[in-house]
C-alpha cells in the first residue's frame, strides 16, 4: 500500500539506513538517478552523488538533531545529468531517527537563479571583479579615444586616416557602453525609486517604442487582465526589462511576425527562499510569448547567466540584466521554450497600495 503511494509521487523519494545505504527508492527516484531500484538498493548513497557533496554532513546533522531540514540547491549531478541541482527535504523517520528519508524536487530556472543569487559567494566576487574591471578599463579607453580624436582633428591627416580613427572612436564607444551595461548589472541602488505602476501602461509604452524601432514589422497581440493590481517596481528599470524581452522576442519572431503579451493573476505562483519558512506568493504575472524557433535546450538552464547568448553578435548581458533587475525588485522570471513557442514569464509579488 505505502509502496504504491510512494510510487505515485511525482518527486524522487528514497530512504537510507544508519550506514547511509539506500534501502528504498520510488520509481521516479529510479528515473532520477538513471538506475534501477535493484542496482540502487543496498548500495551506498555516496555512489549516487558527487564526491564533494555535503550530504554526509547533512545526514550527521539530521541524525544528531533528530529534526528534518531542507537544503536548497543541492548538487545531484552525475554523468547523465550534469549541472543538476535540486531542493532536498531530508527528514528522519519518526520511529527510527537513524533512517532518513530524502525527498527531492527539481528547481525551476528562476529558482536556480534565485538560489544562485542568494547563496553564491561567487556572484559577490564576480561583482567586485566587475567593479575593478570598470575602473581599470575606462582610463585606458579614454586615452585611446582621446588620442584617436587628436589624430582625427589634425588638419594634415588624410581621409584614409580619418576613416580609421573614426573606427577607433566607434569601437571604443562600444566597449564603454558594454562596460556601462555590466555596471548596471552590478548596481544594486536602482531599487530606491520604486512606485506603484500600472503595468499595462508600461507595456503599451514599450510596445509603442518597439513598433517605432526594432519591431516595426511585428504584430503585437495583447491579452491583458484589466483587473490586475498595480505592481511595485522601478519604472525605468521595468521599461528597460520589457524592452529587452520584446527585442529578443522580435528577433526570435522574425519569421512569424507576431508576439503575444499577456497579463494575469496567478495565485499558484509561489517561491520559497532558503531563509523563509513560508513560500512567497508572486501572483502578478506578465508573459511575453514569441512563436520563433525556440531556445536551444542546452542553453536553457543558463539563459539568465551573464555572457550566455544564442545570438551571433550577442554579448549575453540582456537577459542577465533582466533577471537581476527583476530579482532586485522582488520579482522572478522563468522561461519555457520549445520549437515554435517561447514564453518568458515574469511574476511580481502583490503589495498593498496604501
Amino acid at each position: 500500500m505505502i509502496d504504491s503511494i510512494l510510487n505515485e509521487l511525482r518527486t524522487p523519494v528514497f530512504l537510507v539506513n544508519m550506514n547511509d545505504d539506500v534501502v528504498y527508492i520510488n520509481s521516479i527516484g529510479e528515473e532520477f538517478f538513471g538506475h534501477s531500484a535493484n542496482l540502487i538498493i543496498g548500495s551506498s548513497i555516496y555512489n549516487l552523488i558527487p564526491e564533494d557533496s555535503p550530504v554526509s554532513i547533512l545526514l550527521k546533522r539530521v541524525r544528531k538533531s533528530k529534526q528534518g531540514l531542507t537544503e536548497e540547491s543541492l548538487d545531484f549531478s552525475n554523468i547523465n545529468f550534469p549541472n543538476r541541482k535540486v531542493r532536498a527535504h531530508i527528514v528522519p523517520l519518526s520511529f527510527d531517527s537513524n533512517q532518513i528519508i530524502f525527498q527531492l524536487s527539481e528547481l525551476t530556472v528562476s529558482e536556480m537563479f534565485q538560489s544562485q543569487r542568494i547563496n553564491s559567494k561567487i556572484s559577490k566576487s564576480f561583482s567586485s571583479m566587475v567593479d575593478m574591471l570598470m575602473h581599470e578599463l575606462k582610463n585606458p579607453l579614454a586615452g585611446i579615444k582621446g588620442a584617436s580624436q587628436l589624430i582625427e582633428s589634425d588638419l594634415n591627416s588624410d581621409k584614409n586616416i580619418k576613416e580609421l580613427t573614426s573606427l577607433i572612436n566607434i569601437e571604443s564607444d562600444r566597449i564603454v557602453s558594454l562596460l556601462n551595461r555590466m555596471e548596471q548589472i552590478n548596481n544594486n541602488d536602482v531599487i530606491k525609486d520604486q512606485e506603484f505602476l500600472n503595468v499595462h501602461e508600461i507595456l503599451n509604452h514599450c510596445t509603442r517604442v518597439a513598433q517605432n524601432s526594432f519591431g516595426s514589422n511585428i504584430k503585437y497581440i495583447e491579452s491583458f487582465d484589466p483587473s490586475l493590481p498595480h505592481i511595485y517596481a522601478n519604472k525605468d528599470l521595468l521599461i528597460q526589462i520589457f524592452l529587452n524581452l520584446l527585442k529578443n522576442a522580435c528577433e526570435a519572431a522574425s519569421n512569424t511576425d507576431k508576439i503575444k503579451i499577456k497579463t494575469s493573476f496567478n495565485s499558484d505562483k509561489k517561491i520559497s527562499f532558503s531563509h523563509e519558512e513560508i513560500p512567497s506568493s508572486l501572483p502578478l504575472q506578465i508573459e511575453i510569448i514569441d512563436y520563433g524557433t525556440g531556445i536551444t535546450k542546452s542553453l536553457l538552464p543558463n539563459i539568465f547567466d551573464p555572457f550566455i547568448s544564442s545570438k551571433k553578435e550577442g554579448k549575453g548581458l540582456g537577459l542577465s540584466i533582466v533577471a537581476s533587475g527583476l530579482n532586485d525588485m522582488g520579482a522572478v522570471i522563468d522561461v519555457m521554450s520549445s520549437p515554435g513557442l517561447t514564453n518568458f514569464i515574469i511574476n511580481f509579488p502583490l503589495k498593498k497600495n496604501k
Partner: protein
Amino acid sequence: VQSKNLKNIIVVDDDRSIRVVISTALTRAGYNVKSSGTAAGMRRLVESDFADILITDVGLPDGDALDVLPKLQNMKLN
C-alpha cells in the same frame, strides 16, 4: 613676447595615456603645458612658479592630490 599671452598649465595624471592626450590637446590649443604623473612632480612644478592653471587627477601613486593642494595654496598659483 607672445608667450605672455599664453596660459601656462600643469597637467597631472598617473595614467600616461590620459596625461599625453590632455597635454597634446592643450598644446595644440596654444597653451604651454608641463606634466607629471606623481604628487611629488606636481609639487615641484607648482613650486617652479610656472603655471597659471593646474589640472590634476585626485588619486596619485605617491599620495592624494587633495592632501598636497592646501600646502601649495600659499604659492602663486592662480
